[in-house]
């Protein structure tokens, strides 16, 4: 078990290193004359040169990369080109906002998918068909469209929730709910739909296995077999899909945050993209990959807990 975790951590760190290095070189190599872009066409050559020195752009790329990497290891990602504020400061508050919403959406997806998927696979008939069609449509419709429909219908027309803005859960739980329920729903629809299909499919596969028949013959009720045996063995592939959904939701959050005007990572991504603020974008890439690596590690641990073959090898 210890070696299993160690291997996964090493794999995660290598992933983080390779992706961030690749991103660094791609972003800085293709960036053009950054100093001139920042100062605009009216700047003199001397001003541009001074700006370049100020940003450290006159150094060779490898030196800059080394500086960035050694800084990043201590949690220093440099300063934003646009606002001069430290990147870490810009990121810190926003990561929590986005992560709260995305993690809530992942949890909702997991729970919803287990309920719907096991219902569809064990009931059959019209229950199964309804859930299947709903999950197909839910997976097909882009999340930000759902977000806009929710803003229009639930927030503006019905007035049940706030159409825009965000309140921290530490400030007020009800306030948080009034601002977060709609974005979480918008993200979770695709999650529930996608994971439901997987849960349903692998539960049907699992149900055909020999041990299910033997457990039936030992007198266990079909409810016990479905929820304690079939579902547990089917949860491995479903967890993998849930992990992919987390990655997709981090991306989806960018657009959904824009719809609901939520001050999260997504909004920061959009503004720093528009201003070509490469240090901030690098910081966002690092944070995103770290989140994905941590989540994958958690999923691996959950898999090992569920599956003794993984745990004991």
């Amino acid at each position, binding site marked *: 078990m210890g070696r299993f975790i160690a291997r996964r951590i090493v794999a995660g760190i290598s992933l983080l290193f390779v992706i961030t290095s690749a991103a660094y070189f791609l972003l800085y190599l293709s960036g053009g004359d950054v100093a001139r872009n920042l100062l605009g066409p009216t700047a003199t050559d001397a001003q541009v040169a001074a700006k370049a020195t100020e940003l450290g752009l006159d150094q060779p790329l490898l030196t800059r990369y080394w500086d960035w990497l050694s800084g990043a290891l201590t949690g220093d990602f440099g300063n934003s080109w646009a606002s001069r504020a430290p990147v870490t400061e810009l990121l810190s508050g926003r990561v929590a906002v986005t992560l709260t919403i995305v993690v809530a959406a992942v949890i909702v997806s997991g729970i919803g998918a287990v309920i719907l998927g096991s219902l569809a696979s064990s009931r059959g008939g019209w229950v199964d068909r309804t859930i299947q069609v709903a999950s197909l449509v839910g997976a097909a419709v882009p999340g930000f469209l759902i977000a*806009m429909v929710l803003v229009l219908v639930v927030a503006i027309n019905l007035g049940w929730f706030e159409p825009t803005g965000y309140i921290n859960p530490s400030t007020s739980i009800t306030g948080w709910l009034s601002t977060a329920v709609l974005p979480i729903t918008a993200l979770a629809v695709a999650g529930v739909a996608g994971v439901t299909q997987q849960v349903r499919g692998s539960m049907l596969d699992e149900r055909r296995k020999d041990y299910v028949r033997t457990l039936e013959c030992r007198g266990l009720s079909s409810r016990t077999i479905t929820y304690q045996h079939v579902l547990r063995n089917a949860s491995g592939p479903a967890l993998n899909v849930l992990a992919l959904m987390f*990655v997709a939701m981090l991306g989806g959050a960018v657009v959904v945050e824009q719809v609901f005007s939520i001050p999260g990572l997504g909004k920061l991504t959009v503004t720093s993209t528009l201003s070509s603020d490469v240090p901030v974008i690098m910081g966002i*890439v690092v944070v*995103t990959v770290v989140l994905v690596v941590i989540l994958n590690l958690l999923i691996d641990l959950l898999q090992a807990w569920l599956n003794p073959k993984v745990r004991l090898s």
Partner: protein
Amino acid sequence: MTAPIAPTPRAVTQQRASLLRSVLRQPLGAIALSVIALFVIVAIIGPWIVPGDAYTAHLDAILLPPGTDHILGTDPSGRDVLSRLIIATRSSMLGATIALVVAAAIGISTGLVAGYYRGWFESIFSYGASLFLALPSMVVLLAARSVIGPNLWWAMVIFGVIVSPAFYRLTFATVAGVRHELYVDAARTSGLSDVRIIGRHILSVVRAPVIIQAAGIAGVAIAIQAGLEFLGMGDAKLITWGGMLNDGFQAIYRQPWLLLWPTLALVLISVALTLVANTLRDVLERSSSARRSRSSEQAPAVYTIPVGSALSVRDLEVAYGNHKAERAVVVRNVSFDVAPGEVLGLVGESGSGKTQTAFAILDVLPGGGRITSGCVALAGKVTTQAQRAHERGRSVAYIPQEPMSNLDPSYTIGAQLTKPMRKCAKMTKTEANANALRLLTRVGIANPERVMSLYPHQVSGGMAQRVLIAGAIATEPDVLIADEPTTALDVTVQAEVLDLLRDLQAELGMAMVIVTHNFGVVADICDRVAVMQDGSIVETGDVESVFDRPQHPYTRELLGAILDDASVRTLPSSTTTNGVPS
């Protein structure tokens, strides 16, 4: 030199045509394909059919409601919404196509190479795939946009690269699966080059799953493209659905209907693409949700059951499939009685219906199978399906053929043994544990405490079968059904397990049905034997009389074949046990 089973190009085209036809035969598939076709046509002829001005701002006609001049109204700049919707179709479809072509080209080619050659290719490409899968595509596209600027086509190329692992994984898994199939080996030994083998034999295998995946990816590409444009990250000069959504969102309080049309277009194409993929998958698999059907057993009154019989089967018929045309009868007119303490051997080749008979008695027929006539009586009384389900794990028990696959891999042996005792016999945890230890000792397991804490993959097949026997006798059943209980075991273990079964049967006075193809097992343990062929019993009688004077030609054939087989098998092994190498 041609390979033996090379599909001819013509066969492949026919296959493809029939795939399309079978999708069109499904109503949903046909509708979805028509919707996609409509979008493609609009994308091509769009500029020639627009009813109004999609480009120029008319400040005197902003935000007009739908009317005769403007069928869908006008946007905040006074431009005709329907015309913009039509024009935007082209960029969406083109963008999706670019992403799809890039993703397929990268994913399929790397997947073919990695799956066919394995080794280093596999390590490198699989690592690359895991890199891309860890990245949210929207974040990558935005990061890329900060350096390459607002270019939709480049964004779609990059998106194609990011999603290429979907094609890679699919192709890799499929190719690695068929890599060592006989026909690929045959093609290789017949001297075909690797390139031609991949082209002719392997590409045809991955075609269908790739089409399904492609439909899904096209949908995601269209959605992500719209997302980018909605954020205002797209090319301002292009008319796009995402851009229209952005315009509409700005005017959400004044004219919310503006959001409806691009939303409708996006939802329609996304759902159509998903439905096509799903229909294709259904057509290719045709399995999914076959549910266990309710039986239509006849009214019980007509059957005479001998008093004191432990298990009686009368005129049993088992069939699969609901429609008359596809219905397959696998067991017909099967009748037999087993008295308490008696052992019946149900003998026949695979496919003779012996296991189906056993499953019917236990009411555990696989999906689609059901009893279509006849009845099963327990303890002299004709049972309903619900009654038999209730007796499972109480008065009726079952020992399966393949021990390893009949234990749940996720639970310890102790947990699997004690759970039914606690649920069905209402024992406490300590009682159940003590009972399980006693049973494991009884079936000849030396170290029961340790075995209780092990998982199925940690024990041998023989040990697992002993565990299953212990579970079966836990409730001291009156009837025990054993389906080929020794077939999957090593020869030495077979004899031990058979001895154990004989002892337990005598000790508990159980009626036992042993399903087997092995007359050796019959001779060893059975009192009576019923020989099955093609779903019916062809001969039944005492073991001795059937062995000495088989009446039916099929019985004689089976006995003859087994005797020949046995002599061939036992001769060399007996010489080696004597220490004399042959």
